[in-house]
């Protein structure tokens, strides 16, 4: 066991064991409240033959010693480090913290850098133990047990044992290391003394399967030995059943990759023709002229593959109109939004909910009207996990008018409602000022009456509660007018 030089120190602290945090904390409190500087203290683990007791002064009640809670947690981690200087180092930090309470936040301070690197080493070792412990099974049935041999760099068995309990509660297992062991009998965790490699089983039948897996999941065309060794340093290899394969896999990789590239493509496998004939029969030659659909379902089907503008590329699907073919009124919105794009139905998102509730209040039955959009694919800009709606341009509106015209042709409503500027532009063939024309009924050349109002999403965008309510009322008034016009 490494011992600190004692000669110059005037105080000696003896700790119970390598991770005796309570002992360290008690001693540190006594020393610090009595103003004993780190240079005057030596730390050691275990007792000498002379069995001399700690000669520490009692902590002084009149001196307040306050340290950040964070420090306690970090010190508990660092005390598991194998560096024999750690006890003194932690006391030195405590010493500084008395006059520099913000010290832990100063990441550029050399002592804090060291604290971090020690914490990191302990955490990494803890993580690697969780990764590289390999259990070997002994016994069967009621006698079944799993035993592993592992060699950690730091004193981490105690802090890591709970992880293995949480993971393998339903198993009886033991992890042996040179300085301590952990044993779980299915109900109770016991930390015991260290052991030797020979105390663990020498083999396990499942290892042959594991090695087969390791060999075959490796892609020789992507050899990156350094990347492997960075995460799985050689020091761990001796206890990993798969690691002995590594040298041969590396040596053969180049040959295997070159062989794959050099090999000429072969002719298709014998069963391929049969599979093709059965599952992918060549389609009947398509009719030269596509029949024009004469109903809405047919039109919807045609539109599902629409490539009249590039908006299909980013959208999930065409969102076609919905409602009875015999509807008296057709509501036209701008374009589907995020929710509509996923569901494939118009007006089902937040604006759709506003729209529905106002229609309800105006006593218009949504099931009896036809609802569609001027543009049938969602146009957006991705921003992280959101899609920001972008306004369709004149070209896109024009391209999609092909479908809206066909919908109107088939339904022949006596009224169309333009919800917002894009819908009005599509229905009237030119951009019109919505605020000025709101509530107007315009007769198109083909006789169709178009009622102009805002898009319900406009209401959603108003922040002030009162303004929002007022706008909602205005829209309700508009819908009541629509209700009257429907009857006319």
């Amino acid at each position: 066991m490494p011992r600190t030089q004692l000669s110059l120190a005037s105080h000696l602290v003896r700790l119970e064991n390598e991770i005796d945090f309570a002992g360290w904390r008690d001693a540190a409190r006594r020393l610090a409240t009595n103003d004993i500087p780190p240079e005057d203290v030596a730390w050691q683990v275990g007792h000498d033959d002379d069995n001399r007791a700690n000669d520490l002064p009692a902590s002084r009640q009149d001196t307040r010693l306050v340290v950040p809670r964070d420090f306690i947690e970090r010190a508990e981690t660092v005390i598991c480090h194998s560096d024999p200087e750690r006890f003194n180092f932690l006391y030195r930090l405590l010493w500084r913290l008395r006059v520099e309470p913000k010290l832990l936040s100063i990441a550029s301070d050399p002592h804090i850098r060291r604290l971090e690197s020690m914490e990191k080493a302990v955490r990494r070792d803890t993580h690697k133990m969780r990764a590289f412990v390999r259990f070997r099974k002994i016994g069967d049935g009621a006698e079944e047990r799993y035993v592993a041999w592992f060699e950690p760099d730091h004193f981490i068995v105690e802090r890591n044992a709970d992880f293995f309990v949480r993971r393998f509660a339903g198993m009886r297992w033991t992890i042996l290391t040179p300085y301590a062991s952990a044993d779980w009998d299915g109900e109770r965790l016991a930390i015991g003394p260290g052991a030797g490699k020979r105390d663990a089983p020498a083999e396990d039948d499942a290892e042959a399967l594991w090695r087969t897996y390791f060999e075959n999941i490796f892609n020789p065309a992507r050899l990156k030995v350094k990347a492997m060794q960075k995460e799985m340093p050689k020091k761990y290899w001796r206890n990993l059943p798969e690691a002995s394969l590594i040298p041969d896999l590396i040596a053969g990789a180049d040959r295997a990759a070159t062989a794959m590239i050099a090999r000429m493509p072969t002719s298709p496998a014998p069963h391929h023709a049969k599979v093709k004939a059965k599952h992918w029969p060549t389609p009947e030659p398509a009719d030269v002229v596509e029949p024009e659909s004469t109903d809405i379902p047919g039109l919807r089907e045609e539109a599902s593959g629409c490539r009249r503008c590039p908006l299909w590329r980013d959208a999930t699907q065409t969102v076609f109109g919905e409602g009875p073919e015999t509807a008296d009124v057709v509501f036209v919105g701008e374009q589907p939004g995020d929710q509509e794009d996923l569901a494939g139905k118009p007006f089902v998102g937040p604006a759709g909910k506003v729209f529905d509730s106002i229609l309800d209040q105006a006593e218009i039955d949504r099931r009896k009207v036809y609802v569609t959009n001027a543009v049938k694919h969602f146009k957006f800009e991705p921003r992280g996990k959101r899609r920001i709606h972008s306004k369709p341009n004149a070209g896109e509106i024009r391209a999609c008018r092909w479908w809206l015209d066909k919908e109107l042709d088939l339904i022949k409503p006596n009224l169309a409602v333009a919800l917002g500027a894009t819908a009005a532009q599509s229905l009237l063939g030119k951009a019109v000022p919505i605020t000025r024309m709101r509530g107007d009924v315009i007769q198109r050349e083909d006789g169709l009456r178009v009622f102009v109002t805002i898009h319900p999403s406009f209401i959603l965008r108003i922040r002030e509660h009162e303004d929002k309510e007022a706008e909602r009322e205005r829209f309700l008034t508009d819908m009541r007018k629509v209700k009257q016009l429907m009857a006319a």
Partner: protein
Amino acid sequence: MAVFSVREKLAILSDAAKYDASCASSGSAKRDSLKSGGIGSTEGSGICHSYAPDGRCISLLKILLTNFCIYDCSYCINRSSSNVPRARFSVEEVVRLTMDFYRRNYIEGLFLSSGVIRSPDETMGEMVEVARRLRIEEKFGGYIHLKTIPEASAELIEKAGRYADRLSINVELPTDEGVKKLAPEKKPETIRLSMAELRRKIEEKAEPTLQSRKRERFAPGGQSTQMIVGADKTSDDGILRASARLYGSYHLRRVYYSAFSPIPDSSAALPLHNPPLMREHRLYQADWLMRFYGFSQPEILAGSNDGMLDLAIDPKLAWALRNRGRFPVDVNRADREALLRVPGLGTKVVDRILETRRHRRLRLEDVGRLCHSVAKVRPFITAEGWSPGALTDKLGLRQTITRPCEQLSLF
């Protein structure tokens, strides 16, 4: 057909699965075996239990249920015209292997994929049965990732989500044209619809139900996808554009990029060369810029000539060199967004700078102690006692920085 032993099947069906890059076992709900009395836990971050000499982590038992497949995708080792040996695991065999490996701490869980045999529902049904038996009969609490077959029925997807931590559907190639050309039987439209449906399900189940007020379990680890890089001609800008669309539209946890790799018995339809590993690495870095560094997709390659990421330097440095007008940034005053754009400063370093500077003004040496390579950072920041002067706009800056950085390169 030859009768294979489990070990022979394992050799064939893990060889057939290795071209799927995803191996993550993180980001799921917390679970442990103390309550169930079974085996297995997930605790947020995943664990890599081994590393193959290709540098890839081995966290999950990644296998196919079968490599028989009715599809003929030219980039795939299992396409129906390929001459590779074919095998098929039984449900029981996969359950046994998973449990045997897990008990010995070889793995975090199972990543099960499959070639499509007979019908999508039949194949998906067997995969779901594996997951069900692991969860219900074996009380398995480890990680389960199921590859989802886009054409499978809604009920099967519902069940898959109940037992699995993560579901994924591969878009395979960044453009629909690419899919049509190289995987003629696959339908990009169906893939999109399936991803949309998964997002809807995940969001719906995340809401407490009206009756029990509990959340139903449905793929708590979300969904992911994979794109093959270098099998078609799509530029990096096009690939990143597809990723940005997928993240935004379907709330994917991850998009995996897989450098197209030569396969045994390859198709004549594809170029045969070593996989473009550095390109793949740069794409991951650019993906990180979008997800953690506040970059929008079009920014990353704006101003580049060919829409390709620079292979010699990382995408943030390349961006900074094209946008020198935004530098230098004052490490003692700049906000988090601006600091995140400084080459060489990662998210952790930025957080430490923000914390430290509340208590003291940072000098260049201080920044040097916090980050890996001060040579890369220096031209782009001002600090107490340090100003880069004309260095930021120096013509040969790229060379000055790349030389010392090369030693740190991953490859």
